[in-house]
């Protein structure tokens, strides 16, 4: 009897053990394997660490000579730009951009104005679900203009010294900044690589060159949609269009609805490099049907010379801005016709020297202004 019980106990124990191991082993196998620590320092550094803050910067020093008093002359310090990026997890990242711009009124006023104006240009927290869906919140450069989001404040990145005036920092033609939320991604489209960006935000502030950083000044949000394609069959080509709507509320003026339609075509190789953009801005006074339409466009072409002169990149850009004379919102925005011709010389991988001439006119009855500009731009 005792032997039988003992045998039965052993059989039951064995069966239970087999069942327990059988159920437990797959669970162990499904657990994510912890990465084996790397052997050497280089491999260790390559493994991801969160948060991983990286700081890069851009700077430039400029010289200007002009035949009329139409802007700064002599040597000027450019913007000192710091860019921060930090991956907070495999799918979440923070992007920031801060600039320090020399002030013309430095030392004046009470208290005395500082020498540099500090500005948070971009502060974005983004969640990446996949290539097709990325959601972010923060302060952006408004993605309805290619130049505005391709070069930001990195003068070294752009071929020419100056930005097109339609997206000039502090300019008013296009809202350069956007505070709000953005959904973006690549739509499944075969080899067409159709990208989209859709946003909702505060739109322009009471000073129309600024975004509504401290909140929307009316109850109509700004909406934007940007769609562009980068087809596989034409590597380097990007063609896109965008639309933007907002209500502009300023002190002492009635409200206006703003509608912007823009388009761009860019050939991003360097031999040649071609950038063309156009934007139409329409303002309609709320409660009326009177609409004004202002147009701006530019075309830039550049060419990286072949070896042995491949450090040189000559370029030319024509810009045109035509402001509707009845446009109250753009009453202080000047017209423009300008031709810019110059050359960029890449003295090293991270430093370039640019020099360009500008011939421009604000109106047909005004004289042409000629200027010569030089810049050393770098990233660090």
């Amino acid at each position: 009897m005792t032997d039988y019980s003992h045998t039965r106990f052993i059989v039951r124990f064995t069966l239970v053990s087999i069942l327990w191991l059988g159920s437990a082993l797959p669970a162990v196998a499904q657990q994510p394997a912890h990465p084996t620590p790397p052997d050497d320092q280089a491999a260790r550094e390559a493994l991801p660490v969160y948060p991983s803050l990286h700081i890069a910067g851009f700077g430039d020093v400029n010289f200007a000579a002009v035949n009329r008093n139409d802007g700064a002359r002599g040597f000027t310090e450019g913007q000192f730009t710091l860019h921060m990026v930090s991956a907070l997890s495999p799918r979440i990242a923070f992007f920031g951009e801060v600039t320090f711009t020399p002030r013309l009124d430095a030392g004046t006023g009470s208290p005395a104005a500082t020498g540099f104006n500090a500005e948070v240009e971009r502060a974005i927290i983004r969640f990446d679900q996949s290539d097709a869906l990325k959601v972010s919140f923060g302060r952006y450069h408004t993605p309805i203009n290619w130049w505005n989001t391709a070069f930001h404040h990195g003068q070294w990145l752009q071929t020419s010294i100056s930005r097109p005036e339609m997206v000039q920092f502090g300019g008013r033609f296009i809202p350069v900044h956007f505070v709000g939320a953005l959904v973006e991604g690549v739509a499944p489209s075969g080899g067409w690589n159709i990208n989209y960006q859709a946003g909702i935000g505060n739109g322009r502030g009471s000073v129309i060159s600024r975004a509504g950083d401290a909140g929307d000044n009316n109850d109509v949000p700004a909406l934007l949609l940007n769609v562009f394609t980068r087809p596989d069959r034409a590597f380097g080509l990007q063609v896109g269009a965008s639309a933007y709507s907002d209500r502009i509320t300023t002190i002492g003026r009635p409200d206006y609805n703003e509608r912007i339609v823009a388009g761009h075509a860019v050939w991003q190789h360097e031999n040649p490099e071609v950038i063309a953009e156009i934007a139409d801005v329409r303002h309609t006074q709320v409660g009326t049907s009177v609409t004004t339409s202002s147009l701006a466009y530019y075309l830039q072409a550049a060419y990286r010379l072949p070896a042995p002169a491949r450090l040189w990149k000559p370029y030319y850009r024509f810009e045109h801005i035509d402001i509707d004379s009845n446009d109250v919102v753009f009453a202080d925005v000047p017209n423009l016709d300008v031709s810019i011709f110059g050359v960029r010389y890449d003295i090293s991988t991270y430093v370039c020297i640019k020099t360009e001439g500008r011939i421009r006119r604000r109106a047909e009855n005004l004289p042409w202004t000629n200027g010569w500009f030089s810049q050393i731009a770098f990233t660090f």
Partner: protein
Amino acid sequence: MVMVGALHRRIVCQMLWLVLAWPITLGAQPSHDVAVVVHPDVPVDSLTTADLRRLVLGDRGFWPGSLRVTLLLRAPVAYERDVVLKNICEMTEAQFRQHWIAKVFRADTAVAPKIVYSSEMAADLVNRMAGAITFIDAAQVGRGMRVVKIDGRMPGDKGYTLH
């Protein structure tokens, strides 16, 4: 006189060795295929050249199944890097660096390619990091490495473009 004769013989011997070794050193120049190796869990067996370009230039950041891509690239002057930049990106080293500086600056991605300093390090990390992709001289691809086809071809196949 004896010293001059010995020196002469030594110079002649060295020149002879250089002449004989010349074809050997030429043959040692790497000109073979570069394999595209991915982490074993990457759910992809084949890529097109355009897919590969988007991966290397950071325009594609996820594998199917939302697995994050980790790009492991050899440091400058490595043969594998030269092949990728020339054949896939159609860029010079300076253009490639500017592209990635701009890419991160535009907030398109938070992670630039990770640099690996040898084929051994690339092979080690590609099997260690989920979603990793790297480029290894096909002659140095070992067992356990997952090589993907490019435009339907494996390294060594006729028409394989990465070399």
